[in-house]
């Protein structure tokens, strides 16, 4: 499907915001569930993009910038895959193949982030000189230039995809045989595990593994909704905290640092 000028401008605005947020990590416009939905909203394809955003969000659950490490780039992955989904005109049917495209894009976005973060090194040196001059305004302006660069990091690739246009993108997607798209959809069902695995690796201790097991088993009861599971989880946490305090000095709380299953996995 083709977009009119206003839609193109709005898509680029969303792309810019996503790029800015990709570094700031504050409002979370770069999270797939927000970015894809916004692109769907401005292009009039809300529902397919919404579903794409939700699905990508699950994959990106554990992606986080920690310390100096850079996570796969959710911003480019969500913006570009949503644009491709919209241009392909396939609606909900195109979600699975758009996700398969999103993952390589996340890697490409990672490289662009590293590039901009390197450029920013030069920018803070300009700030250093401004500080010596006592020029406050100049520091502020360069802060904004740095932020703008991060926005362009996503807006420019988005514009490129829009320029290349619906034709080649659709041709690319339609050229994909059924075994490939079906297989990718099956793969998509599994990659979610990677995000969970990253989060579990961070949170797991000997103390909290039993709660993982309880959650896993209760989830097999399909009558319990996620909200229901959430309530059970909160209650369990409160009960545990209360009991471990009552247990009094020593025995309950402190000695339990460790991660047996993690150790097992380590040693295997």
């Amino acid at each position, binding site marked *: 499907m083709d977009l009119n000028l206003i839609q193109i401008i709005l898509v680029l605005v969303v792309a810019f915001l996503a790029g800015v947020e990709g570094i700031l990590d504050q409002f979370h416009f770069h999270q797939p569930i927000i970015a894809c939905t916004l692109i769907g909203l401005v292009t009039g394809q809300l529902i397919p993009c919404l*579903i794409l955003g939700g699905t990508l969000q699950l994959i990106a659950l554990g992606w986080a910038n920690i310390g100096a490490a850079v996570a*796969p780039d959710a911003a480019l992955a969500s913006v570009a895959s949503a644009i491709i989904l919209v241009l392909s005109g396939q609606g909900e049917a195109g979600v699975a193949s758009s996700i398969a495209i999103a993952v390589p894009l996340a890697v490409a976005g990672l490289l662009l982030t590293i590039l901009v*973060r390197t450029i920013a090194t030069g920018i803070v040196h300009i700030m250093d000189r401004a500080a010596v001059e006592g020029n406050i305004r100049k520091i502020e302006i360069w802060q904004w230039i740095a932020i703008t660069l991060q926005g362009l990091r996503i807006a420019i690739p988005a514009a490129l995809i829009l320029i290349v246009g619906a034709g080649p993108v659709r041709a690319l997607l339609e050229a994909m045989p059924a075994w490939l798209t079906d297989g990718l959809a099956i793969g998509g069902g599994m990659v979610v595990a990677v995000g969970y695995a990253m989060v579990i690796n961070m949170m797991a201790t000997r103390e909290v593994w039993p709660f993982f097991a309880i959650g896993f088993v209760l989830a097999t009861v399909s009558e319990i909704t996620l909200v229901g599971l959430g309530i059970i989880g909160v209650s369990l946490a409160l009960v545990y905290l209360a009991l471990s305090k009552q247990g009094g000095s020593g025995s309950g709380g402190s000695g339990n640092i460790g991660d047996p299953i993690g150790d097992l996995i380590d040693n295997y």
Partner: protein
Amino acid sequence: MAEEIRLSKKDRIAIWWRSTFLQGSWNYERMQNGGWVYAMIPAIKKLYKTKEEQKAALQRHLEFFNTHPYVASPILGVTLALEEERANGAEVDDAAIQGVKVGMMGPLAGVGDPVFWFTAKPIIGALAASLAMAGNILGPIIYFVVWNLLRMATMWYTQEFGYKAGSKITEDLSGGLLQDITKGASILGMFILGALVNRWVNITFTPIVSSVQLSEGAYIDWKNLPAGTEGIKTAFEQFAAGRALSEVQVTTLQDNLDMLIPGLAPLLLTLFCMWLLKKNVSPIVIILGLFVVGVVFHLLGIM
């Protein structure tokens, strides 16, 4: 000095807002330093009137800084308190201010990363994603509102807390409340993760283990049903009574696995991914690998 200079609430709100852009000029040399000085600028303008003092303050706050972007707020608060003392003539030297910043950024990043990135974000994200995947627009709205309320409130209140507690904040953080919150959050997080691994990692094995010819009376005999709506009624009655739909009962590998416990394969896959990650295999490699596995296994008829 005749009168003491104090930062007003308006100043502190301006700094709180500016700290949103803490990571804007994130760079490989001194990381969040540009955003930090950008956030401090309202305080520097207010506290220091001479050009020389301002220059010194700007340079002082362009030093290396890096922490979790939300928990930078209490550090900002403490630093504001210190700068205020200094501007009012107290003996607070550059080393003390830099020491407080560096001393706090490590431990606080250790709190911010697990609480926000590994607990709050996955839980809110997963709940919102489940709504979005069902085509419910409330998903992204809930995510956006809940996340930003949580973030903005955390940043404002911890900045105020830091400002009021001044240099004592580092001791307060070792108190019990924060530990309880961290532990409670990780219990809830692991519980939800267990549930999500089961429900949302999809693996279905399609190979047929057995096809058994059922004996007469165990399946619905479609050819000999009464005609018209009466036939439909009879079929439903027989189905409700437990009769099979066709005369051959097909059992797939998945049916057998589900008899142990549904979700066994997703659990094993998740544990395998954890192992790969601990062996420092890049998540991107694992993701791409799983797509390849999906395609290959589909072609082989396994999935």
